[in-house]
């Protein structure tokens, strides 16, 4: 009797072929993207999304062509922060145009189509038992977005990841070209979670880590002051791309979706520019 592998094809359902076609469409859609960089952590609340946007701005200021994909479908924040909450998805002749910030950063975020008062919901045949299929569906959705939108020619596509060490690994598997930047804060709890993410990712795909909220910038005295009492430096065994202090003015602008292009030169903007430089060097 024939076994599974003796039979060519699957009798007409073409499930495997369709999955392969989806992958080919994604590869095709990203053909013009030089670097895919996922900003992750494992830990929530460390400032992945704000750092993604700020780094994108710093890289854009260096003349690079940048887009952001907000992969946190369940808690999208890039639309608000980047000021594209009201943007339309307008179809071109082949692909869908990407909403852009005033300084030309392309941004896809579910926040452009889902009001903050609503949640992402999927229709289900399985009677609400979403723990059995939800992750698969979210990755299919990610694939659809990558294939349908017009990413064009980019130096970097920055992917703002959702929290969760296991999700970080799933993105590494789903997008084999992606490099990773991990974000931590000077807290032992956050560092512990990030250390787990480091162990789960292939080392050669981690560009390094950024320590966010490394003190805060006081505009009154033009100084960086401590936020966390954490004297030990992290020892992840990966390069440190820099430390970025918290800046209440940047946070205010993000909340309001105000442009970050006209920021004064401060220790924070210099720190971000330094991380951007290190990131580019790490990728090259």
């Amino acid at each position, binding site marked *: *009797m*024939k076994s*599974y592998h003796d*039979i060519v*094809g*699957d*009798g*007409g*359902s*073409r*499930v495997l072929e*369709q*999955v392969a076609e*989806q992958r080919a469409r994604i590869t095709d859609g990203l053909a013009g993207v030089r670097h895919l960089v996922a900003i992750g952590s494992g830990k929530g609340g460390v400032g992945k999304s704000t750092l993604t946007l700020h780094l994108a701005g710093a890289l854009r200021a260096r003349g690079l062509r940048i887009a952001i994909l907000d992969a946190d479908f369940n808690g999208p924040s890039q639309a608000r922060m980047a000021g594209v909450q009201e*943007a*339309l*998805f*307008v*179809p*071109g*002749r*082949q*692909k*869908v*145009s*990407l*909403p*852009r910030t*005033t300084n*030309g950063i392309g941004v896809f975020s*579910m926040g452009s*189509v*889902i*009001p903050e008062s*609503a949640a*992402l*919901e*999927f*229709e*289900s*045949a*399985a*009677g609400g*038992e979403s723990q*059995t*299929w*939800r992750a*698969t*569906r979210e990755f*299919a*959705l990610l*694939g*659809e*977005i990558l294939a*349908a939108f017009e990413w064009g020619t980019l130096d970097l596509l920055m992917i703002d990841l959702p929290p969760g060490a296991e999700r970080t690994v799933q993105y590494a598997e789903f997008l084999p070209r992606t490099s990773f930047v991990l974000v931590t804060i000077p807290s032992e709890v956050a560092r512990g979670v990030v250390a787990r993410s480091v162990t789960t990712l292939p080392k050669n795909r981690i560009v390094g880590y950024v320590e966010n909220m490394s003190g805060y910038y006081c505009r009154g005295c033009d100084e960086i002051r401590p936020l966390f009492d954490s004297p030990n430096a992290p020892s992840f065994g990966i390069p440190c791309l820099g430390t970025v202090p918290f800046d209440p003015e940047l946070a205010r602008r993000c909340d309001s979706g105000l442009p970050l292009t006209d920021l004064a030169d401060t220790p924070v903007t210099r720190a971000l520019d330094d991380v951007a430089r290190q990131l580019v060097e790490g990728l090259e």
Partner: protein
Amino acid sequence: MKFLCVPCDSPMKLQTVGPPERGSLSVVYSCPECGYEIAMLTNAYETQVVQSLGVRIGPEGGEKASTAGCPFSGMIPAKGAETPGLTAPEPVRWTAAAEARLANVPEFVRPMARTGIEKFAREKGFFEIDERVLDAARDFFGM
């Protein structure tokens, strides 16, 4: 998943896929040698797994029978949807070429894209959406 007709030792071919009924698909396979038919009846979890992959199931060459239509349709509450009690906005006509371009938008966000473009068109005084209006929307939003 493949099906084998054991007496003929021959791979069976997919014939028809029935529309989902209470979460179950009826997928009929037949043996090209002896014509024997079987039906695979999926449970809701099996249907959902296939849906979640974003694939459709149907016989090769024929009209594809979806597992349940677009796996994404209807999952996002439409932003800017009509509010009950308010007068419906004046209808906007889409040309065939503009509709064809709209089909490039993934199904899960197409209703919102349509609503948003129609709103943009009305605000700009257009009551027919053609490719020129779509290009105008792209320009307006700096795309």
